[in-house]
Structure formats: structure tokens, C-alpha cells
């Protein structure tokens, strides 16, 4: 998978949002969002509950249609009328939702291929092939060896970190150029968190882009090339890695909460 990852890309930004707004009735969930993600950039998206992080992600991945604004994928304008989850998949965007990415009662191999099954022309699944590839992903990409997991394991029997690993492995298998992680470490044990952070690093080294929503500032600060802070549907800060220490960032966010209305730092 790693081969060709550093191949030259014909675009600057994997995704660019321009002045995107979305309101539910009188509630403005997103207000004039401008955001561009480079082709091999890990962008941390932080903000309080209800700041609009998930809504923004859903707009980028075709789950929700915004009230106004434009979206460019690989520098090309997206037509909202034909943009959908399926289309986002086709454009090699993959979202790993916290707790909502995998079917609990289904075996691992089905979870890797659902929605993108390998079938014959009558739509019947080539089970042996899917199982073989699933086992391959487990061993080669994720390094799951000797932990009692194989393609037939049911998701409900996996640990939280393993689940995130499966979802990230699936994204890399389908050669996604943008992988979106929605709080992948929430409710995980510390050893599990380390695994997930390693998976996130492998996204970067394989030449892909990643949007990483996270509550835990330490995790996201450690990994991200850039931190984007959302507050009440607006981007209030865009911080490059190294511009702020973890302590400064924490203070900034606490001030933000207290100030009621946000005043971002000079960018």
C-alpha cells in the first residue's frame, strides 16, 4: 500500500470548503466555513460539543447538504445535486465514525467490504476472496498477529482500539485519499489509545490526508499538522503545529469558553 503513496498529486487541496453555512430552521449549525485540507496533512478539528465539528464532517462527506456555500474536491467544484455518501466514497473519502462505523453482529470481512462488495455480475459476493483480503489487511496493514482475530471474528468481540484499527485499515485498503476520524480514542483504555494513534500516523506516512476530530487535546496536539478550532459554527482559530504549546492551547480554549464570544488569535 505504501508504494506510490508519495507519487505526485495533481491537486493542492484534497478538499476545500468555501463559505459553507448550514442552518436547521433558526439554528445556525455552520456559519461561513472556509477550510482547506492539503493532500498529505493531518488536520485536528477541535471545539466544544455542539460547535459544529460533526456537522462540518457530514457536509464534507455528503451526508448533509449545506444551506449555502461551495465545496471543492481535488480543486474541482462539487455539484451538490449529485453529491452523496456513495459519491464521496467514489472520490476516495472515508469517514470513521466513533461507534458507528462497524456492524456489531457482523463478521469482520463483511464489515470491510459492505457497500463495496466484490461480487459476480449477479451481485453474489465472492466470499472466499473477501475473506482472504480481509485477513491480508489484518496481517499486513494493521499488524494483527496472534491476537485471536481473523476475518471471521464478530465485531462485538473486538476491543475499541481494534475496531478503530479495522475501520482505518478499511479506509486504507480502499485507497482513500482523505480519512476522517470522529473521536477515535474516546472511551478507550490507554494502551488502546496508543494503537489508534499509531494507526493515525500510518495514514500520514502512507501519503494520505486526515481530518481528526478529537476531544483530548494532548492526542491531537501530538499528531496534527494543523489545528482548526470551531466555536458555535465558526472557525475561530487555525493553528500550525508548533505555534502553540499544549498549555497555551488549553488556556486559549478555556478562555474561548469563558469569553462567550470568540476572538481568535492573530493568524
Amino acid at each position, binding site marked *: 500500500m505504501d508504494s506510490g503513496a508519495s507519487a505526485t498529486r495533481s491537486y493542492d487541496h484534497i478538499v476545500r470548503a468555501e463559505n459553507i453555512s448550514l442552518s436547521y430552521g433558526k439554528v445556525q449549525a455552520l456559519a461561513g466555513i472556509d477550510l482547506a485540507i492539503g493532500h498529505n496533512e493531518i488536520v485536528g478539528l477541535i471545539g466544544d460539543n455542539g460547535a459544529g465539528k460533526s456537522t462540518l464532517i457530514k457536509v464534507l462527506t455528503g*451526508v448533509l447538504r449545506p444551506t449555502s456555500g461551495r465545496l471543492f474536491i481535488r480543486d474541482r467544484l462539487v455539484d451538490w445535486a449529485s453529491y452523496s*455518501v*456513495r459519491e464521496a*466514497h467514489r472520490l476516495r473519502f472515508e*469517514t470513521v*465514525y466513533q*461507534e*458507528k*462505523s*462497524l*456492524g*456489531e*453482529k*457482523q*463478521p469482520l470481512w*463483511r464489515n470491510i467490504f*459492505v*457497500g*463495496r*462488495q466484490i*461480487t459476480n455480475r449477479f*451481485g*453474489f*459476493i465472492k*466470499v472466499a476472496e473477501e475473506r482472504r483480503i480481509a485477513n491480508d489487511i489484518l496481517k499486513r496493514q494493521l499488524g494483527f498477529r496472534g*491476537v*485471536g*482475530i*481473523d476475518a*471471521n*471474528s*464478530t465485531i462485538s*468481540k*473486538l*476491543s*475499541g482500539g481494534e*475496531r478503530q484499527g479495522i475501520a482505518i485499515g478499511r479506509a486504507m485498503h480502499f485507497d482513500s485519499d482523505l480519512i476522517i476520524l470522529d473521536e477515535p480514542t474516546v*472511551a*478507550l*483504555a490507554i494502551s*488502546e489509545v496508543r494503537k489508534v494513534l499509531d494507526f493515525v500516523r500510518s495514514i500520514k506516512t502512507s501519503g494520505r490526508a486526515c481530518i481528526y476530530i478529537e476531544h483530548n487535546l494532548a492526542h491531537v496536539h501530538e499528531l496534527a499538522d494543523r489545528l482548526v478550532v470551531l466555536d458555535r459554527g465558526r472557525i475561530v482559530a487555525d493553528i500550525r503545529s508548533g505555534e502553540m504549546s499544549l498549555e497555551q492551547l488549553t488556556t486559549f480554549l478555556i478562555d474561548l469558553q469563558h469569553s462567550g464570544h470568540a476572538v481568535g488569535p492573530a493568524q
Partner: protein
Amino acid sequence: MSAHPSHEAPGRSATGFLPAIARIEGLPIILVFVVLVVFFMSAAPQVFLGWPIYLSFLTTVPPMVILAIGLTLVVAAGEIDLSFPSVMAFSGFLFAWCETTLGHPWLGVLAALAGGALIGVVNGVLVAIVGVPSIIVTIGTQFFWAGAASILSGGQSAALQELSGGSVDKTFASDLFGFLPMQSLWAAAIAIFIWFILNRHRFGEHILFIGDSRTVARVAGVNVVRETVKLFTLMGVLGGFASVLLTIENLNYFSTQGQGYLLPALAGVFIGGTSVFGGAATIVGTFFGTFIIGMLEAGVVATGIAGFWVQAIEGVVFVSAVTLHLLVENPAKLRAIGGLVGLRRGS
């Protein structure tokens, strides 16, 4: 939800740990089926040691098997369809009408299937697009189409003796080689076909994921609305087909036919081990579960117990089978119950 202790590691894989035999689909219910047959053989040898009773089951149970197989898919998707008894009435009416008025039974078969499909599409659209819970929708459509069948038929039954010996009768209700009822072959073929759809086809996988979690399915790129409409349509078509088999076997149509199938067909699905919560289903289990239900009445009566014991025994079998499945699937629960008993003994 996510923080499972990692010491469960051995045995997490579905292969390798359990002996191969325990992984046979529907094994618990096949065992229950065998035990019941052996019990009836010993309790009523004069009936259950001869062929006729089994051949009779192969005539009477198939419509119920076909309904239960369709329901298995619906339940797997986390939905329910209670409207199929009315599909049997409405589709049966269309079939009988084509025969008595147009003299064209094959057109009747098509009309019955199309009528079932229509009812299914209406159910599916109301559930998937409008968003009304399926239990509510199908209670409503159950009344509506039963009413429609009564109005159209004027509440009259229709005698269809002239079908006897014709090509439709030969195809759906004759005995192959003089003994094997065609209904049973159709039911077996449909069961096998639907097994492949559920376990090996993209559509079946989508159904399982929708039943597991609609959100996960949607995020994975499954078109939940389209697949749900397709699912209810398939259920309607299967109901129409069950109706054709029943009407031809009886050589008679009456507007309340199908009413007796609601609970037995549902019981067959759940006795078979399909999860009431959706996301997991077994066609093999449903097949045997339905035969258990279909066999119980004749069996209980043949053993010489009075007829009014039948429903009570059906109830006991139903609850025990569903409990058994729960405990087989979730041994932790078994231990919890064991612990509870131990606690009581201790105190």
C-alpha cells in the same frame, strides 16, 4: 460499549475454537426438531412411523414456510411485516378472479404476485420514505387489504374445482412421482434461493447491516431507503406466492384465507433462532422452526392428548426455543442465571 477486556482473546475467532459441528447453521433447532419427531414416533407410533403424515406435512406446511422465509429477511432488517395474511387474501382474490372471470389461471398467478408486490411497495414506501414504524404501517395495511379483498369478493368464496388436473395445478399442487407434493419442492427451492440471497448476495448483506444499525449501513454507503422498499416488496411477492399455493391446494378461495397464518409464521421465524433485534438471521432455523409449528398440532392430537392442549404446548415450545437460542448465543447470561440460582440457594 467499546472497552472489552482483552483477556477474551482466545475463542474470539469464529473458526478454530468451536468444533466444526457446532457451527452448523440452526443446529439447536434441528436438534429440537429431531427430538420432537422421535418423541411423536414413540408416543404415537401408529401415526408417526408411517409416510402419510410426513407427506401431509409437505402439503400443508409449505405456504407457511414461504411466508416465514420472507419474514426472516424482514426481521433481519430490524423491521416487521404483519400484513401478509391480507396479502394472502388479496392475492388469492386476484388469482381466483382471473380464473373465474377470465379463465386464465396463469395470468392469475402473475396477478397474485403483482398484487403482493403492490402491497409490499406501499408498505416499503411508508416505512422507508415516510418513516412510519413498520409495525404500525403493516397493522394498518393488514386491515386495509383484508377489507379490500372482502369488498372485491363480496365476502364470497370461489370454488375453483375446474383447476384440478390443469397445468397450474400440476405445477404447484400435484404430487411428483405420485407422492412428493410440488408445494414442498417450491418451498425448498425458495428457501435455498433466499438462503443464498441472505448469506451470499449484496442485498442480503445490506439487510443484515440495516438490521444491525441503520446508521452504520448508511455510513457504509448502503441505500437504506431503496433496500427497505425492495425488502418489503419481496415479502409481498412471497406472500402472493404462498397465497397461490394455498388457493390451488384448496381448489377454493375464501376472503379470510391467510388469517390463521399470522402468529404461526412469526413463531416459526423466532423459534428458528432469528434475532428479534435484527442484524442476524437464519433461514435454516426458520425452515425447521416452521415445520415444528406445523407439526405440533397433528403430533399433539395423534399422541391422544385432547386437542385443546395444542396451543398451550405450542406456547411452551415457542418460549423454550427462543430462550434456548438466547442462552446458546450468550453463555454469559446462562452463567448469570446460574449465579442467581446459587445466590438463592446460599441465602
